[in-house]
């Protein structure tokens, strides 16, 4: 990258794969993950001037998480009828790169998808992105103690779902 603050294009090309993976773990399906990445890239471009050189992936994680939580809040305000959750819908069986190849990974993803959003977000930011509790607290604007509680409860629920 040139200079300390990368261009939007550089961010998109270099970190797009990372963004998409985080978005997929948060949303649980490809279509929503795609939309989430698109909106996150929009915000990245608008906010790039405010970026301070540091952990780019931490910064991007905060953005994609905020987009995700905004969408969760929006849906709560204006609930829409949703299709019943089933593995076929959550984990598309169409052939290609989107096709899950690891059965265990499928089951974990499904269990992750069924966690309450707050728990899922904390768990994804911790175990997929690798943020510290303090960084997660900053990203979702809650105290560190709340982050710790959400991560632990999320993991316990996940474990129960996988057994």
């Amino acid at each position, binding site marked *: 990258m040139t200079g300390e603050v990368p261009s939007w294009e550089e961010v998109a090309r270099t970190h797009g794969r990372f963004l998409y*993976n985080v978005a997929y773990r948060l949303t649980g399906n490809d279509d929503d993950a795609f939309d989430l990445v698109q909106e996150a890239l929009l915000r990245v471009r608008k906010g790039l001037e405010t970026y301070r050189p540091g952990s780019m992936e931490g910064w991007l994680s905060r953005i994609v998480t905020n987009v995700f939580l905004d969408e969760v809040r929006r849906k709560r305000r204006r609930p829409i009828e949703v299709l019943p959750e089933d593995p076929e819908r959550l984990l598309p069986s169409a052939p290609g*790169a989107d096709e899950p190849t690891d059965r265990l990974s499928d089951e974990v993803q499904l269990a992750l998808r069924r966690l309450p959003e707050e728990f899922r977000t904390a768990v994804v930011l911790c175990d*997929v992105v690798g943020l510290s509790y303090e960084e997660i607290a900053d990203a979702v604007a809650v105290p560190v103690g709340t982050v710790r509680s959400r991560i*632990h409860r999320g993991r316990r629920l996940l474990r129960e779902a996988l057994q």
Partner: protein
Amino acid sequence: MPPGPPGDHLGDALSAFLDDELAPAARREAEAHLAGCPGCQGELEEVAAARRAIRIMPVHATRRPLWGDEMIGAVPGVPGGFGIGAAGASWPHPGPERSAASRRRRAAWALVALAAAIVALLLPRDPSVAPSLPSLADTHAARASITEDPLSQLAPIAVPVRFGP
């Protein structure tokens, strides 16, 4: 953050323990508690298994063009084709739809090119461009001889041939 009052189970401090998020003193307390508490040991194993299951998941990729040149360049009015800015209202676009539109455009241009080629073939040729085929045949027949012209050796008599009226 301390694991909790003495005698209590560790609870969510177990995850903090796994994630190395406890202060040194709290970590020592947690270790001491774990050494004598089968319940917390079992819970630690449970959350550790969940944590491991998530962490070993492969990166999930997609073949969709999230920011490909085609999509980026399609954003109108953006210098360099990479920005969104004022054109943000037209963004985002679902990748598959964008790709389908592009394929349709390419197919339309291919049809136009094919039609142009067919029309070109059907148009009458301009006789001034080169000697016409009938005149060439006339000339050849007039000059033909059995000994000099290998083509005429195949015919018993050199007969002038005229094509067309």
